[in-house]
């Protein structure tokens, strides 16, 4: 996310605020529509998008820009407004206020939907039709040339692993197979933008791996993928960039590269007592959890010096593990993790560790 929103890791407020010069400029740009949209601009732009259902505010002012050609994760807890945002982007719902554009066209533009693939969270297709017929129907609805239907359908079926069930009625499909079919529907016609709303909710681990592979292939051919999910590990694996939403607004945005750079060090040391914290504090924010010493933001070059100093002070070093913050930890910290839950610099107890294990408890070892 770029543009009106802040830099990586920025929190709430400015990201979702409606007013401001930058925001107004964005609104004007969106209003100008497709004619002036740059070919390499944003696939999705929204400005102060708000949606109310009676007295309930589902989106409180969503401002975001999704660059073309990226895999963009849209994360948030249940009820954060993710699916509402997706429906607004597709014109399936109308915003109470604010504006936005998709592929250079205003939100709700019917013609722009020809270039969008969509897998709904609530996926369901005509049970009386065979999978191949469902895909043919969507080829027709998407106005693809009739000659292109057979290869498009066959390619989509093979991509999602349904080629051998192509002529079976979809009412005989499991939920996972229906979701695979939904993915195939979303991929028809090589769309420029693919919006996937919880695409792995019904899939087994093999299916999830397939989805990751498909998303990778979409990125490789230059498509933009908008991935709405609360499965953070999935998102972390495939996305270039994520926005975290809560209570109808964006609370943070970051790239995976930003996240990977937020490194730290976990050291299991004994024989130092409170001296360990004193020593480590010179290298970065520090905390101690049992025998584990955690140092956030320490430079890689400083690690030998820290370890050497700890040893010089009489400490016995059992493990030294470089770590980086996981998306889940960032997510939980931003959304106010409950006491005891892991977070950046948090204090999750190492209860998951068995004797002899050396992995630090609250960060992902690299």
């Amino acid at each position, binding site marked *: 996310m770029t543009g009106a929103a802040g830099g990586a890791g920025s929190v709430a407020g400015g990201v979702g605020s409606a007013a401001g010069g930058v925001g107004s400029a964005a609104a004007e740009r969106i209003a100008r529509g497709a004619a002036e949209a740059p070919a390499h601009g944003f696939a999705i732009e929204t400005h102060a998008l708000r949606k109310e*259902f009676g007295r309930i505010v589902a989106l409180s002012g969503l401002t975001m820009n999704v660059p073309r050609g990226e895999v963009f994760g849209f994360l948030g807890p249940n009820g954060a407004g993710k699916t509402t945002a997706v*429906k607004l982007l*597709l*014109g*399936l*719902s109308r915003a109470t206020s604010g504006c936005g554009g998709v592929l250079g066209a205003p939100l709700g533009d*019917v*013609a722009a*939907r*020809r270039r*969008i693939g*969509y897998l*709904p969270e*609530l*996926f*369901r*297709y*005509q049970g*009386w*039709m065979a999978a191949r017929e469902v895909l043919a*129907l*969507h080829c*027709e*609805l*998407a*106005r693809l040339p009739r000659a292109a239907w057979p290869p498009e359908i066959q390619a989509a079926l093979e991509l999602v692993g349904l080629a051998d069930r192509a002529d079976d009625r979809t009412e005989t499909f499991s939920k996972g197979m229906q979701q695979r079919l*939904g993915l195939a*529907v979303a991929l028809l016609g090589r769309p420029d933008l693919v919006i996937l709303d919880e695409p792995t909710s019904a899939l087994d681990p093999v299916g999830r791996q397939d989805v990751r592979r498909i998303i990778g292939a979409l990125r490789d051919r230059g498509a933009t993928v908008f991935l709405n999910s609360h499965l953070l590990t999935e998102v972390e694996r495939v996305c270039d960039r994520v926005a975290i939403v809560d209570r109808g607004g964006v609370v943070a945005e970051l790239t995976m590269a930003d996240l990977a750079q937020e490194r730290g060090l976990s050291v299991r040391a004994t024989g130092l007592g409170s001296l360990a914290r004193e020593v480590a504090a010179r290298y970065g924010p520090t905390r101690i959890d049992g025998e584990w010493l955690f140092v956030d933001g320490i430079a890689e070059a400083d690690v030998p010096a820290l370890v050497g100093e700890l040893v010089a002070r009489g400490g016995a070093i059992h493990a030294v593990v470089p770590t980086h913050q996981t998306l889940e930890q960032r997510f939980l910290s931003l959304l106010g993790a409950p006491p005891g839950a892991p977070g950046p610099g948090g204090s999750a107890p190492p209860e998951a560790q068995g004797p002899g294990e050396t992995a630090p408890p609250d960060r992902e070892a690299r």
Partner: protein
Amino acid sequence: MRSSIASIAILARLTLREALRRRLLWALVGLTALIVALTWWGFSRISDASPVSGPVQELGVSQVTVMLAFMFSFVLAMTAVFAGSPAIGPDIENGLLLAILARPVRRSEVLLGRWLGLAIVLVAYAIVAGYLELGAVALATGYVAVDPLIAPVYLAGESLVLLTLAIVLSTRVASVAGGAMAVVAFGLAWMAGVMGGVGEAFNSDVLRWAGIAARLILPSDTLWRGAADGLTPAEEVLRSAGIANADLYRFSPFSGTAPGPLWLVWCVVWVVGALAIGILLLRGREL
């Protein structure tokens, strides 16, 4: 505009295919064949066993024919309601429409496509089954009403009115509730039509206006009366059968009156207006 027509055609075809695949059409064809056979057999018995002949028998046959048509109109109305009530709402609730509307398709096109597909099924059924039944009556008894060809057309129109009502309700009301509302409305409109007929016969303004108001609110009875009128025996048959006052004959719940051109225009306006309201209701609905 061309794109809209294409979308409506796609969705109408989808609806027709669904009717075929779900065996709605085949069920209607099978039941029609059965009813036509029973009609021929029943009227043959009437003709053979009747103790009277001439105009009185003709009057009797005409009354049974109109009653048969009424039952057929009821079957058509129920078919229209049961086909129309789940046309939109369940597709929203189960997510089917999300995938369709994410394509370059407008909500209005979905509604009109569904309506058109079901309308084609109903009209085809009404016309084919109606003519087959009247043919069976003519074959069994030799009785031919004043204007038998028009009756199935009016019945088809009546089913379209009820289909439209059911589809409009399905944009906002659950299928069962919408279906029940449409059936009750159909029944009330018919009863109001009977009361209007009584008002005409006994010159009661209150009843007459009540009948007119009901026909304006839901013109299904207007079209039923047109169908019944087409099946009514000629005036000379009525007189020969001893019914001196043909107006009084209109008192019968199974009698008819051909709707004037203004009423027919109103039926068309009503359907178009109801569809427009349905489109507005669907546009305003959150998916």
